[in-house]
């Protein structure tokens, strides 16, 4: 079966691109942040530098790693589902469920390993650039060089492979079951994530306002709540589609009509696409706002701000920004992959008389509803962490900069989802309809 997996990887590089990209982006982030641990641990690093590096690696690297785990897992859920037909065919030709599972999981491991190995070089460069920023801001002594060691490499490979294999295993198990009933595993995992997230947000209140790692608890909390809400987002998407049906039909005509029907039927399957969307809205809003509140708190502490403080502020935003960009890339990647997979369906619609414009309006309408769901679920997740952090850090519940940051994040989410869906659809529609349905 491993040979079969190897062969199927070699024959179909295009279809595995989404998995490869997710593993590549994810491993880059994990290796880069965890290599800060390696850098901190090398002999000769100044104590202040060690503390600063360990803090960044622990806080941002920590929740970054969690995001990578969730992101790769949700991508795998999407890509394994796309192979349901092929798995059914293998079953009919006599493959046992065990053999199919080994093939799909083996393939996921191979592709994830390839993505993680490809990520080493860019992660090394990015890590160097990051440590250079630490030098510039005086956080780390100039003589301390960036080092990539066992922690960075081990975490990068380990997390990527674990997420890929685990998600592939769960997804293939679901696909092989005769008829999926309620997704029990997802419900349990979602509930656990919500509880853990609430715990993270709650833990903020147990910490000292000046604790350097104070940001970690609410950030983790927000991300876990976002992941938990994502597991329960299908009914929200369905309800939203039903409610906005009339408006969407009016606005987008037959395209809107099809968008609503598709989303109502496919809401459950779309959890894999909603996950990165909700994570992005929740995570980016939470961490960027927390950073803004922290900067304001430092400013309000009465000390005149030196250039160094400002530099540190920039550094923190850069670090948080890297993780936000990763989430955004993941969102684009999974939406593009899910859209490209619909080539045959688009062909069927065109053969039934849909113009290209109507198919594109349908894709646009679907993206709109997906983004709305992402905002509705991601915003409360972000608010939970931001409010807790603000309350503990400043003693008020009026977080600074939040509306502006939120608006920015939501705009980026809408643009990313809309463009990923539409541009992929435009490319997919280049295939003549008669060819698209035959493939």
């Amino acid at each position: 079966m491993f040979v079969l997996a190897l062969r199927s990887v070699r024959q179909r590089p295009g279809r595995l691109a989404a998995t490869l990209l997710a593993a590549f982006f994810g491993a880059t982030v994990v290796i880069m942040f965890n290599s800060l641990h390696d850098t901190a641990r090398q002999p000769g690093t100044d104590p202040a530098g060690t503390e600063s590096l360990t803090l960044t690696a622990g806080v941002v690297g920590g929740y970054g790693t969690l995001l990578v785990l969730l992101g790769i897992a949700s991508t795998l859920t999407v890509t394994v589902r796309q192979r349901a037909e092929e798995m059914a065919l293998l079953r009919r030709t006599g493959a046992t469920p065990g053999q199919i599972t080994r093939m799909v999981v083996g393939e996921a491991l191979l592709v994830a390993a390839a993505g993680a190995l490809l990520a080493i070089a860019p992660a090394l460069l990015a890590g160097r650039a990051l440590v250079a920023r630490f030098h510039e801001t005086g956080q780390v002594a100039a003589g301390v060089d960036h080092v990539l060691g066992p922690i960075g490499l081990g975490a990068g490979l380990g997390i990527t492979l674990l997420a890929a294999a685990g998600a592939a295993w769960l997804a293939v198990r679901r696909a092989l079951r005769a008829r999926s009933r309620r997704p029990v595993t997802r419900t349990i995992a979602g509930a656990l994530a919500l509880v853990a997230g609430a715990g993270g947000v709650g833990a903020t209140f147990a910490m000292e306002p000046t604790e350097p790692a104070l940001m970690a608890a609410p950030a983790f909390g927000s991300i876990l709540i976002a992941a938990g809400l994502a597991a329960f987002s299908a009914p929200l998407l369905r309800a939203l589609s039903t409610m906005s049906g009339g408006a969407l039909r009016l606005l987008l005509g037959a395209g809107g009509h099809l968008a609503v029907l598709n989303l109502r039927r496919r809401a459950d399957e779309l959890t894999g696409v909603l996950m990165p969307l909700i994570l992005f809205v929740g995570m980016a809003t939470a961490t960027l706002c927390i950073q803004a509140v922290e900067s304001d708190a430092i400013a309000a502490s009465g000390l005149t701000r030196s250039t160094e403080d400002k530099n540190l502020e920039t550094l923190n935003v850069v670090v948080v920004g890297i993780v936000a960009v990763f989430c955004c890339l993941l969102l684009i990647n999974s939406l593009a992959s899910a859209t490209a997979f619909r080539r045959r369906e688009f062909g069927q619609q065109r053969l039934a008389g849909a113009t290209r414009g109507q198919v594109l309006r349908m894709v646009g309408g679907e993206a709109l509803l997906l983004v709305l769901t992402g905002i509705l679920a991601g915003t409360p997740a972000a608010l939970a962490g931001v409010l807790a952090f603000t309350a503990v850090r400043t003693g008020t519940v009026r977080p600074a900069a939040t509306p502006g940051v939120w608006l920015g994040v939501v705009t980026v989410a809408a643009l990313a989802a809309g463009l990923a869906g539409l541009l992929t659809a435009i490319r997919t529609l280049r295939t003549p309809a008669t060819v698209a349905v035959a493939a």
Partner: protein
Amino acid sequence: MGHTTSALRMTGVSRTYGAGEAAVRALDEVSLDLAAGSFTAIMGPSGSGKSTLLHCAAGLEQPDAGQVTVNGQPMPRGSETRLTRFRRERIGFVFQQYNLLPTLTALQNATLPLTLAGKRADRARAESLLTEVGLGGRMHHLPDQLSGGQRQRVAVARALITAPSVVFADEPTGALDTRSARDVLALLRSTVDRHGRTVVMVTHDPLAASYADTVVFLADGRLDPSGELRRPTPDAVAARLAHLGDRAVRVGA
């Protein structure tokens, strides 16, 4: 013959795939004139250009040369959108693989061409069509809750919903068992007899072809010069096909 209106007319239609050495002339100046209310089967060995002929006639592909008119109106050329608009109002199509949309119920699938054309989805008409094809009790089922034969009958209802000038069927029984195939063929026959529709069907099953009024034969992208076969029986069709095959081999050799 002079007074019957022509539902479909093809004049000198040619279509070539690829270029240079690898070019394949799938259709070579084919001309056809089908009267309204007729049922025509198109037959030929695989690779003879049957599907290309059907796609060009139905506006799913643009021919390189020649003209197609549907009910006297020339098929527009150029933009796919113009072609789609022309096609969805005048032409119905039944595919071998049904091509129903998986997220739409039987009723929603049947009314889809109207919805796409921006017309009011005529629910009553769709319901009576679905009842007529024997699916009155399954209008709210999704395609994957229906058997192959039932799906194909939904596809027939969808093809008829716009009251098209011509209904094309591409191997409509190719994926069906014998009994479902018979049902679908009888259904196509009755749309001609009872509703006066024009049906053009590609098939390589002589039994299926025997449901038509006339069979035309295609080999190497050209119509068989021996002419069409009227009031076909399965045996007569099979004999002509065998003959066609022999000749194709001789020409090829």
